[in-house]
């Protein structure tokens, strides 16, 4: 495979010499027959289909469940590279929790003038109901996914933090299972750090944050919007793996100051709810009155300490894209250290100088909605048509505060298997961090998402992206 486009390729670097982490794998793949590999690839697809590892597409009844394309060429990261990333994530996650605690208590960071008040006051993700509430162990974000992109040998950037209900970890685990089944010989040749303890660690993190009154083995439930939700597979997978009940709103009610679920023998209290439902839908008495996805009164029970909700309500504040641009300041404010992981330079369109710059340079920039996710509502300047740009400019000028802009990064590439053999495609990485009162555990690697279309920078599964297994080598 050659690397003519000048991007940083994680296998080939910037030139023609294979990078160290890919040494053994590279020799192996050179000796493989492409046809054989393509057969393996079809086998993998079949395995995913049989196991039902699917995601749902809304409003598309007949083909409602789809497979996320899986590429069988692993993405390989050295132990040394990973340690750096992991330290950076740990620092960031610690700061995010400290920030959330502060915002919902004394608000020192606002008093110190390090971030503007409007950023909090005008933010829908800020929940006044959470003011003065201290979650067990002061953990707000039990599960965090930090999206990281790479642009060079030593260049890593955080693209965004996912602090509400990050998804994708089931793919990290199933991708590895699939690779273990299909290429056992590679795992005896190459020492890859294990990820299979994630479910046990998740259970531990959740159990460690159970309400104080809960003495023995806490009862944990995963709250899902139901089988039509796009991530339902993941919800049931995680519930199964951590030995939790998988509940929906209609299984729950408030009973004696606790949240209880309807079992075959009556209502039984739940200690910890790992919710995969947004804040707004958790409790029709406190939030959206039309929501059927949560339980009336859940927030009151939570505030009184009758149940732990993970992630805590109101954590969405920390993964807002406008807050993101202040994250280096937030890290410094709470840890006293400079941020180990860099942010992508970000223009806040709410500031008039920045807006002027963004409007002028829009063809080079990526412009994102502050509250958007899933690759929706964004403009990739360099690949957009004139009319798309002018359409977007109208929206931008109408509500500049709703947007941020970033340079179009030259994301690193990793080879994927195509009909013609290996070919480079752009990737990002979502590592997963689990927060307990006493420590933060980060699974080595995470979910690598890959844009399957040549040259494309959009890796979201809803937009034609695929996934890869991510190997972090033992040092």
């Amino acid at each position: 495979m050659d690397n003519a486009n000048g991007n940083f390729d994680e296998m080939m670097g910037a030139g023609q010499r294979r990078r160290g982490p890919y040494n053994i794998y590279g020799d192996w793949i050179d000796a493989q027959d492409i046809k054989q590999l393509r057969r393996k690839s079809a086998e993998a697809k079949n395995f995913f289909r049989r196991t039902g590892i699917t995601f749902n597409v809304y409003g598309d009844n007949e083909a409602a469940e789809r497979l996320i394309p899986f590429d069988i060429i692993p993405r390989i990261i050295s132990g040394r590279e990973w340690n750096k990333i992991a330290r950076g994530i740990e620092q960031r996650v610690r700061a995010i929790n400290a920030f959330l605690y502060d915002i919902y208590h004394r608000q020192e960071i606002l008093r110190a003038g390090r971030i503007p008040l409007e950023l909090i006051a005008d933010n829908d993700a800020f929940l006044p109901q959470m003011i003065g509430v201290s979650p067990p162990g002061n953990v707000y974000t039990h599960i965090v996914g930090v999206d990281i992109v790479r642009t060079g040998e030593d260049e890593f950037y955080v693209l965004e933090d996912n602090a509400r209900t990050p998804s994708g970890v089931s793919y990290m685990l199933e991708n590895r299972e699939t690779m273990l089944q299909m290429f056992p010989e590679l795992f005896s040749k190459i020492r890859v750090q294990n990820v299979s303890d994630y479910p046990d660690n998740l259970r531990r993190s959740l159990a460690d944050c159970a309400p104080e009154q809960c003495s023995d083995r806490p009862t944990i439930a995963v709250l899902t919007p139901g089988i039509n939700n796009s991530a339902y597979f993941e919800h049931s997978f995680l519930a199964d793996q951590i030995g939790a009940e998988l509940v929906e709103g209609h299984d729950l009610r408030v009973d004696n100051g606790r949240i209880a679920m309807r079992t075959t023998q009556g209502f039984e209290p739940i200690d910890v709810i790992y919710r995969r439902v947004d804040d707004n839908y958790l409790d029709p008495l406190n939030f959206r009155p039309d929501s059927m996805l949560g339980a009336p009164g859940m927030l009151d029970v939570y505030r009184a300490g009758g149940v732990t909700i993970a992630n805590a309500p109101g954590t969405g504040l920390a993964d807002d894209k406008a807050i993101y641009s202040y994250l280096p300041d937030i890290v410094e404010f709470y840890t006293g250290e400079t941020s180990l992981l860099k942010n992508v330079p970000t223009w806040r369109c709410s500031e008039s100088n920045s807006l002027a710059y963004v409007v002028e340079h829009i063809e080079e920039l990526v412009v994102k909605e502050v509250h958007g996710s899933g690759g929706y509502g964004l403009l990739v300047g360099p690949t957009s048509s004139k009319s798309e740009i002018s359409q977007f400019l109208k929206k931008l000028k109408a509500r500049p505060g709703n947007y941020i802009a970033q340079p179009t990064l030259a994301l690193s590439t990793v080879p994927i298997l195509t009909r013609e053999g290996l070919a480079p495609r752009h990737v990002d990485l979502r590592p997963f961090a689990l927060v307990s009162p006493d420590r933060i555990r980060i699974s080595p690697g995470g979910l690598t998402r890959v844009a399957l279309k040549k040259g494309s920078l959009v890796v979201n599964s809803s937009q034609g992206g695929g996934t890869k297994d991510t190997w972090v080598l033992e040092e």
Partner: protein
Amino acid sequence: MTLGKTAGGLYWMFRYLERSGNTTRLLDAGFRMSLTRSASAQNEWRSVLETTSATQVFSEHYEEADLIKVIDFLLRDRRNPSSVLSVMKAARENARMSRTALTREVWEAINEAWIQLRALLARPIRERDVPEVLSAIRQQGSLVRGALHGTMLRNDVYNFSRIGTFIERADSTARILDVKYYLLLPSISLVGSAMDATQWEMILRSVSANRSYKWLNGADINPVGIADFLILDPRLPRSLAFCYAKINDNLKYLAKDYGSRCRSHELSDMYLTGLREHSISKIFDSGLHEFIADFIRNNNVLGQHIEEDYRFYK
């Protein structure tokens, strides 16, 4: 601890799975009859529709019943909530909903069954493919049941799956008897034409019992013997007595596990005793048709009580 929703999901998953197998058995028997005596085939297909409670929905869409229409309607018509395609979809949806209670093998078996059958039933079935398609549907069902028996813990989750299976099966056998009871009345057996013999064989076939009946009785097929076999014989896995012995056992395990009995237990005990104490001559004396109609009603009532006692929905 099992969620009411999960118990209900598995109960229905196995009812639906059982229903798809029962429908194929009926079609199998009907298909054979239509090959051997096409003259009154129309009536045969009517009775197949009647047995699956599909007559009304069918007549909303078709005037005449013939092989291709009935096969299509009962196997792959989405407008028919009891078509194999509809019930397999529902079985898999219920499995998805209750996935945390199923072993990986059971989940993969039902998922695979759905994937295979959806493809198999994507296009109208040609007459010559009918036997193969019917056997493929039954085979997929067997794979799911095999995974259940081979891998699931014998706990409440298993009990609910089994109860669903046998409530559905009892209903199906009873409906076959309900539609065909007049063929089994003693007055007819006196006449005993060749036509009746084919009809009797069809009844046995529709519960996959023609071979076992012959093992037990040789070539002497008579209506009282068939009724006795299908209603009271505890050895036949599709007889009413067998189904109720299983329902009763599984309810007993639940009572032991949970440490409490409910209304369902009283009913099931009562119905089982009824079946055990009856003789076939007594059933004929007091009216075969009334007996079957009562049974279908009681079986429904028991199903409803199980749903309430174990909080499937509320």
